[in-house]
């Protein structure tokens, strides 16, 4: 199994480690609910180094990315990043990624479990194009610092200059001779940053950020993949392997906003056909009665007919309610629709709820 450069730090912090996408990753340190709540109220740091980081250079880099991405990445300005899907010819989702435009290169951040598939996919479409791809995943570290106190901490107390970039902006810099990129992005529903830096300096920066000696500022505490999952679920964000897969298209997944049907790209034809007919089923938020959790695969009913299937569910730590995301027949996916879930032979009432379940105040 692969280990990130922060592996020793996780062990020292007493993290529980699990296999995630071929990496040995921390699922929790103090407790999922505790880490979740701390992220919603203060600031947490997550090791997300397992995510793939692919760099593209060369005159045809933009054309390659336009060909594989659903998003019109040509519209991104230097210093901006954007969420996109990568689809096959049928419009099935191969991965969901963040593409960033640098002055002289592009960065694509992909899911850990899809990295080898995406690398092969891109290599195939690089043929005949003047472009170079470098997989920097194992040479770099990526951490996410998320929560309402994060931006204030970085602007006032920490030696990394981030300026006044907006959401989905990023800046590059160098600290003690090491280059870094800081992105104002994340996967928790909170404001925050994601930082990419060399593997060699990762552990030092992690230790510096998590030190709790500072009395004059909010302490950044570590959080694991368990809290990352409950946070993204409350924020209504899809997760590959749950809401997203090759059997699903971006329009049904509620991600039509990252698809530009005006441009040509892999899967565009199939997606235009789906768009003109309207998706048969849609990614739908559900709020359940009671406190039972609907796991992936739980069947959704309207009366006696099966009308959908749950992709993710949890007991929302912020709302105190059982919430789920599910694919539901489009006609039954309107807010307020009453449905039922079958949890261990029991029917549990559920109501369609607008996504996201949780929205931050500012």
């Amino acid at each position, binding site marked *: 199994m692969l280990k990130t450069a922060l592996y020793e730090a996780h062990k020292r912090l007493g993290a529980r480690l699990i296999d995630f996408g071929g990496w040995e990753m921390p699922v929790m340190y103090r*407790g*999922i609910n505790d880490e979740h709540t701390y992220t919603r109220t203060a600031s947490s740091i997550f090791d997300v180094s397992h995510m793939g980081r692919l760099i593209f250079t060369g005159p045809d880099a933009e054309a390659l990315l336009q060909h594989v991405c659903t998003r019109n990445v040509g519209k991104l300005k230097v210093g901006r990043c954007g969420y996109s899907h990568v689809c096959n010819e049928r419009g099935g989702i191969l991965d969901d990624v963040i593409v960033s435009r640098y002055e002289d290169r592009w960065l694509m951040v992909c899911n850990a479990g899809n990295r080898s598939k995406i690398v092969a996919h891109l290599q195939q479409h690089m043929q005949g194009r003047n472009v170079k791809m470098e997989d920097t995943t194992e040479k770099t570290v990526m951490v996410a610092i998320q929560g309402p106190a994060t931006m204030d901490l970085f602007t006032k107390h920490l030696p990394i200059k981030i300026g006044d970039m907006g959401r989905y902006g990023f800046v590059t810099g160098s600290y003690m001779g090491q280059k870094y990129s800081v992105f104002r992005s994340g996967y928790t529903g909170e404001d925050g940053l994601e930082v990419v830096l060399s593997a060699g300096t990762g552990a030092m920066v992690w230790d510096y950020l998590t030190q709790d000696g500072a009395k004059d500022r909010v302490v950044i505490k570590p959080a694991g993949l*368990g809290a990352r999952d*409950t946070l993204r679920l409350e924020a209504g964000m899809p997760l590959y392997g749950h809401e997203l897969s090759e059997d699903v298209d971006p329009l049904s997944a509620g991600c039509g906003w990252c698809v530009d049907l005006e441009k040509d790209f892999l899967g565009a034809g199939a997606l235009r056909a789906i768009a003109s007919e309207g998706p048969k089923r849609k990614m739908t938020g559900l709020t359940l009665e009671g*406190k039972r*959790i609907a*796991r992936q695969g739980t069947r959704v009913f309207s009366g006696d007919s099966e009308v959908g299937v749950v992709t993710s569910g949890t*007991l929302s730590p912020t709302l105190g309610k059982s919430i789920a995301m599910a694919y539901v027949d489009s006609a039954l996916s309107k807010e307020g629709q009453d449905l039922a879930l079958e949890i261990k032979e029991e029917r549990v009432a559920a109501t369609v709820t607008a996504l996201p379940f949780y929205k931050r105040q500012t």
Partner: protein
Amino acid sequence: MGVPTDRRYLKSHEWHKLDGDICTIGITKFAADELTDITYVSLPKAGKELTAGKPLGEIESVKATSDLYSGVSGVVTEANPKLGDSPELVNSDSFGEGWLIKVKLADVKQIETLMTAQQYDAQIAG
């Protein structure tokens, strides 16, 4: 530090404590820690008959849903009424306040077939 020696254990981490012919069943701290934050416990009502080795209910955490097993046969006399509103008691006091059910045993000797504290400790250490 070992588990309490005043009770017997199942490999699947349930403890069984006998008082007269009433056996209280709960899960060990090790199991509660493994499950992480417990969100829901599904338990049988009083009057339900249990069979040794068979599931008695389910326990849910943020991470997963797991079956709970009974190591004894008998009739349920009570399910912990506090767990409906406070399932986290299983995390905070698994050997005490976080007990699950009480069962009236047909054969009190049956409990002696379960693992001793020492045997259980050896299992979780291994």
